[in-house]
């Protein structure tokens, strides 16, 4: 298996999954692209139509598949293309943090934030901060066993 996440110096390169809503955040990421400023390559983007589609299971799945962090980006409050999806996402995120905390997974490994279609720079800032935060935390050693997507079990990673 190739691994882009190991830097030249062999230092820890976190793997992060970023769930981006199609209308604002994904467009914000494209906007950042348009400005051609370089940012860390650690975030693997998974596009969803709305942050409201982000099922907590997706987050658990990401951890179990090897992610050290998860970033959920949504339209700003009031701006969701589907009106309210981002409020649901925000509520679910809060709930999820409780579950993660109970299992010793730091809140910082799961960040929810807002990036609008015009905020290319904000996208870069949020993403870079996330990468640095997770880098400082080090690799995730807890793992979520969720081959059964309905299971929320969290165990040590093998």
């Amino acid at each position: 298996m190739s691994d882009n996440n190991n830097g030249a110096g062999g230092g820890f390169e976190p793997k992060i999954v970023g769930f981006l809503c199609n209308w604002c955040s994904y467009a914000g990421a494209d906007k950042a692209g348009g400005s051609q400023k370089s940012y860390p390559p650690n975030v693997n983007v998974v596009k969803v139509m709305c942050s409201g589609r982000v099922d907590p299971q997706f987050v658990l799945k990401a951890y179990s598949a090897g992610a050290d962090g998860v970033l959920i980006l949504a339209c700003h409050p009031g701006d969701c293309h589907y009106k309210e999806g981002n409020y649901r996402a925000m509520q679910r995120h809060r709930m999820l943090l409780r579950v993660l905390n109970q299992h010793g997974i730091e809140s910082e490994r799961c960040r929810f934030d807002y990036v609008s279609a015009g905020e290319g720079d904000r996208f870069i800032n949020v993403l870079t901060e996330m990468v640095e935060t997770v880098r400082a935390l080090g690799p995730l050693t807890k793992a979520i066993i969720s081959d059964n997507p309905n299971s929320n079990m969290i165990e040590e990673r093998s």
Partner: protein
Amino acid sequence: MKIGVYFCNCGSNISDKVDSQQVQQELEGLADVAYFKINDLMCSDDGKQFLSDDIAAEMPDRIVIAACSPREHENTFMRVLSGAGMNPYLMQMVNIREQVAWVTDDVGKASSKAAHFIKGAVKRVGFHKPLEKKSIEMSAYVLIIGAGPAGLKAALSIAETGRKVTLVEKSPAVGGQPVLYEEVFPNLECAPCMLEPILNEILHGEHAENIEILTMSEVVELTGFYGNFIAQIKKTPRYADLHQCIGCGECVSVCPVDVKNEFNNGLDDRKAISLSFAGALPNVPFIDMTACLRAKGEDCRLCEQSCPLGEGIILYDDAEEIVERRMGAVIVAVGASLYDAGLIPKLGAGTVPDVYTSFEFERLLSSTGPTGGQLVTRSGKVPESIALIHCVGSLDSNHKEYCSGVCCQSAFKFNLMVEHKLHDTHIHHLYKELVYPGKEEFFLYKRAKENPNAVFTRYRNIASLEITAAEDKEGGSIIIKNTLYEKAAIKADMVVLCPALVPAKDTGKLNEVLGTTSDTYGFFEELHGRLDSVRSKVRGIYIAGACQSPMNIAQAMTQGMAAAGYVLNGLVEGKQLEIEPITASVDEERCSGCKVCMLLCPYRAISFDAEKRKSHVNEVLCQGCGTCVAACPAGAMNSNHFTNEAIFAEIEGVLA
């Protein structure tokens, strides 16, 4: 499964930073990838031809295109797939330009990141289903509720194209609020003269046959969805034949019953059979059965007997009726009403004589009003001074926090109309704020300010104003005190309160009937305040005019046109309604009937089948956000193209 991967160099935009060879190496061993092909510019004509030919030659089951952002060319490539005979949903695009090549300095890292993205897509695309756009029959017929400026303009715009509309109006007359005004701001144009041509066009114009007008009617039920609504409309009897009556008014003059005239805000009386006001259209009287002697058991037939056309015009047997209409879209244009000034009791509305609301004052100024347009107090005296109180209930967290905009304009209008009628009458404006935005509105303010008889005084808080009947009538029968400055009392013979505009009566009820929503203030809620102010949150139901937000006639007319534009654009006779396939769907086996999805859906696209006890998604209304899918505790909701399986696979893929 045979998956083909296409890699676009995008000129050198991608290939400068992403090394296709390295990517190809990293993908080696990935199950199902049958081939990896590179093209220099896939979105060019040559590139599209290459893709099309290659799909025909390779016959892949699924393809992945690694190129620019899907926001750029996903549709382009979907069309190529369709053209090549492949279902367009069997493709996944990977954004290796905006999100990789352009934002990663190091070629090795960029290539590796691109490879991870592509792995995600390869894993995901295996779960893609061939989706088809569906199409269903739709009706091009339109229902418009409310016949004020907004509804009339919408009706006319639609009828002019040959389409049929039904215009439902609650009151006996069409025209909305402005037919009750004498003159309209900002240029003091004669209101009836301005509206008459439109009303005539609606009633007797070239396209009148396309407009069915149901006066004294209300929509009591709406079922169905965009393209296929069914409305039940309750028609209150008018007791006069709308088509045969010539409106001569003989019947009105012989009627022996007098009742308070609500069309003049109770400032005078009308007969039990009457027109709403002189010149009301349709020019056919109605019988108010709550007042008619026949309702009290008497066999009065005076109106029928007086009719020069004989029997059969006055219809004593007319009865309430429910009529059904089918339509593709609904335009709501039910207008607004005034904030109840009685909620600020110290202003004397309804308790101190000669304290009027702005609507009442409009009628006093009107030649069809209770005094025939003569400006006199209740005791018949010409007022020496009139106080106009702006911002009644506006800009006030105890009442309405917003500014309606039209109240200042109407107060300036009153100033000038009073000046024209009564040259010597003093006018006192008491205001919290003065607003006059717009290219014409400012002049009205300027002219009002220049009126030598006008004085403008600012107050801070309406709660400190006290309006009472003066004991000493010298200088005015009413005294207006500002309790903050006892000495600053003003006397006037008339007071006009200019309250905020608030949602029309029954707006809440209508919202329930239509399934639309109301905003914080109770107005019909728009889809988006700036982009889509005339669309409600329910697809196919549009909102125009003051029922959406306080506004003036020009704005209401414009919104009526805008709503008509949406309707004309979306509903076309003979055309089918296309349904996007990316929607949610219910797996009935798993659905436990908990209704969580229903509560979450912002589009009211989910209904509950009470018999089966299962949720049901309406594909026309569903916009495919997936919020219900993520919330379903039973895992019974699926989202087409964004299935759990596909997303799980993508997550695994990008991390592999």
